[in-house]
C-alpha cells in the first residue's frame, strides 16, 4: 500500500455517521474514497456546498458546480448550497465536526504550519486558518517526512496556521495525538516498529505501554 493510501484509509476510520466534514486539497481529498460503507457523512466544499459527490461522468459536468479548486464535482441527494458568509460561518462557528488538512510541519505541541514558506511559496491561506480555528476536530494528513526530513518537528519554524493545536496527525508511518499538549505516538503503520518511527521523528514523542499497528 502506498503512503497516500495508508494515510487516507486511516483518516477515514475517524469519520462517524452524521459528521459534517471538510477535506483540504491533496491527500485529504482521497479520504472520501475510503468512507466505510453505510456511513452517512456530509462533505462540505467551502466554496458553498454541503453534500459533495464524486467527479461527474464524462459529459455530465456543470460549469457552476465545482470544488474549491474549480474542478467539476457532483452533488448528492440532500445537498445544500450557500454563500461564502454561510460557508465560513459553518466553519468558524464550530458546526464542522472534522476538518482534514495537509501539513508542512506539526510540532510537539500540536501546532500546524501549512500555508506558506516565506520567500518561496506564498499562495495565501485560503480557508485553512478558519478551518483550524473553528472546526470541532482538526486532523492533519501528511507524509511523515519530506526528502528525509521529519515533518513532525520540535517547534514549527514556518508561520503557524493557528495558535490552536490540532487533534490528530496521521502519516504514512504513525498516528499521533496531543493529550495534555504532549505529542504521543498512538499507532504505527503496519510492519513498522516504534523505534523505526522515532528514528525519523524530530519531535520528542511520548510512548504509551502499548502502541498497536494501524488496522487498515
Amino acid at each position, binding site marked *: 500500500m502506498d503512503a497516500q493510501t495508508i494515510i487516507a484509509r486511516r483518516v477515514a476510520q475517524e469519520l462517524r455517521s452524521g459528521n459534517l466534514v471538510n477535506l483540504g486539497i491533496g491527500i485529504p481529498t482521497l479520504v472520501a474514497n475510503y468512507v466505510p460503507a453505510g456511513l452517512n457523512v456530509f462533505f462540505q*466544499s*467551502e*466554496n*458553498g*456546498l454541503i453534500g459533495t459527490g464524486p467527479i461527474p461522468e464524462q459529459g455530465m459536468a*456543470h*460549469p*457552476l*458546480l*465545482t470544488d*474549491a*479548486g*474549480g474542478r467539476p464535482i457532483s*452533488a448528492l441527494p440532500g445537498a445544500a*448550497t*450557500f*454563500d*461564502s*458568509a454561510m*460557508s*465560513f460561518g459553518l*466553519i*468558524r462557528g464550530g458546526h464542522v465536526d472534522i476538518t482534514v488538512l495537509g501539513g508542512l510541519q506539526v510540532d510537539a505541541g500540536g501546532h500546524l504550519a501549512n500555508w506558506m514558506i516565506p520567500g518561496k*511559496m*506564498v*499562495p*495565501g*491561506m*485560503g*480557508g*485553512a*486558518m*478558519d478551518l483550524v*480555528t*473553528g472546526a470541532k476536530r482538526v486532523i492533519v494528513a501528511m507524509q511523515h517526512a519530506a526528502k528525509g526530513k521529519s515533518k513532525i518537528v520540535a517547534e514549527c519554524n514556518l*508561520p*503557524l*496556521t*493557528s*495558535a490552536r493545536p490540532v487533534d490528530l496527525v496521521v502519516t504514512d508511518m504513525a498516528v499521533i495525538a496531543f493529550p495534555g499538549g504532549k505529542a504521543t505516538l498512538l499507532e504505527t503503520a503496519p510492519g513498522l516498529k516504534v523505534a523505526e518511527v522515532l528514528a525519523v521523528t524530530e519531535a520528542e514523542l511520548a510512548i504509551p505501554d502499548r502502541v498497536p499497528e494501524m488496522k487498515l
Partner: protein
Amino acid sequence: MKPVSAEEAVAMIPNGASIMVGGFMGVGTPERLLDELVRQKKSGLSLISNDAAVPGKGVGKLFDGGQVTNMIGTHIGLNPKAQQQMLGKQITVDLIPQGTFVERIRAGGCGLGGVLTPTGVGTLVEGGKQRIDVNGKSYLLETALRADFALVHAFLADYVGNLSYALTARNFNPVMAMAADTVIVTAEHIVPVGVIAPDHVVTPGPLVDYLIANG
C-alpha cells in the same frame, strides 16, 4: 435598476477604481465585464476578489495585462502571473483568511465598523491589529471592506433586478452586492418579474444599480 451594455457599464469605471469581483476560481464571475475591462484597458485597479483564478479566466484576465495595482484576497497560488507580479513587487497583495475576507465585506455592506474573529490570533495575520478579549476569549478586530464598484454574476435576474444564484457560483456575489457604491450585474438568464419567487430572491432588486442587457 437600469439595463445597460457591458461597454457602457465598464466605461463608468475609472482607472484606479476599487472593484469587488464575485467568483471562486472563476466560477460565478461576471466574465463579460472582465472581458470589457480588458478591452477598455482599465488600469491601476484595486481588486478585491477571493482568488486570482488562473491566467485567461475570471479575474485572472486582469493580471495577464498588468491591470491590477493591488489586491485583497485569500489565495493566488493557482495564478503564476499574479504570483510573479507580487514577488516582483509590481503589485501588492494583501492575503487574508477567507472567512475574514467575507466577513469584512459583509460588515462593509451591513453598516458595521468591522467584526471580531478568532481566526488569525497568534499568527502573522495578527500583525498590527487590535486584539480584543470578550468573555475570556481573544479575537482580532477586522475592519469593514467596501469598494467603488461590485461586479456580480447571478444565475437569474428579473426586470427589477432581483437576483438568484446557482450551485457553487453563488459564493461571494450576494455579499459583495451589498458592499459597493455601484453594483453592476451580469446574469445567465434575464427573466420576467415573478419567475424568481419572492422566497427565492437572494439579492433584492433595489441593491442592483445596473444589469447588463442581453446583447
